[in-house]
């Protein structure tokens, strides 16, 4: 383990904002992509089911 305390881990040697900002935006955008895709998938499969009836 590289860190001695939680606050040291969060501070990232003074680069906290930049490091956490980078990781945060990356996973936020990926999560949004998955959420949007899931919404699209649901609406498409609903449309297909309705067409089949």
């Amino acid at each position: 383990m590289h860190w001695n305390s939680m606050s040291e881990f969060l501070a990232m040697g003074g680069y906290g904002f930049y490091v956490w900002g980078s990781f945060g935006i990356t996973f936020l955008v990926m999560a949004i992509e998955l959420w949007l895709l899931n919404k699209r998938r649901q609406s498409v499969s609903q449309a297909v089911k309705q067409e089949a009836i």
Partner: protein
Amino acid sequence: METKKDFNWFKYASPKTFYPLAGKLIPWCAISAAVLIIYGLYIGLFVAPTDFQQGEGYRIIFVHVPAAWFSMFLYLLMAMYAGMGLIFNSKLSYMMATAIAPTGAMFTFLALVTGSLWGKPMWGAWWVWDARLTSELILLFLYIGYFSLQAAIDDKTRADKASAVLALVGAINVPIIYFSVKWWNTLHQGSSISLTKAPAMAAIMLQGMLIMAIGFWLYSIAVILMRVRCEILERDSKTSMLRQD
């Protein structure tokens, strides 16, 4: 006696056979992506040591470099499918190109934003008009141009062909991005694999970065297959392929 049937190389080129195959691949790619990304984050945030020059700020590379790689790689993949669409006139190739574009654009955006978050503390500027950064920004515009062109043309077949030509012409930008750090005197540092000091240190950093990159690759495959399945259903929703699933 009947002879054994020849293997049909184009079997999976048909949306109808590809749809259930893609459905089977998605969970495997998604699960391995999640495992590798978590492991990569563990290495990047807990195991990898401090960089002797950039302190803890260098840890941004664990997301920045894989995002930048896939922004370029996915563009080439999209251009390849677009080219295959033009050559073989295959619908599925066009659908694949269309499905790749949003994820490629997303990684381009992330490469630019995380790069900016790196540039501010390291160079003192959020943005500079350096060859690497400018060509990466042009890549984002190419992706946006690709979507816009598809959205602007009502006839799907024509939209596919026109956007495929744009994707192919734009592919020239990818080697420009890649070699920009060699060809011009850029502020952006050279290839990160040469970000070396003591070999043991570089090895664990490189390992973390590669694990993250493989994770991002599997994530991309899962997302692209999910999107191409939506695309298949939307374009050809009269044949109810959902039942084969």
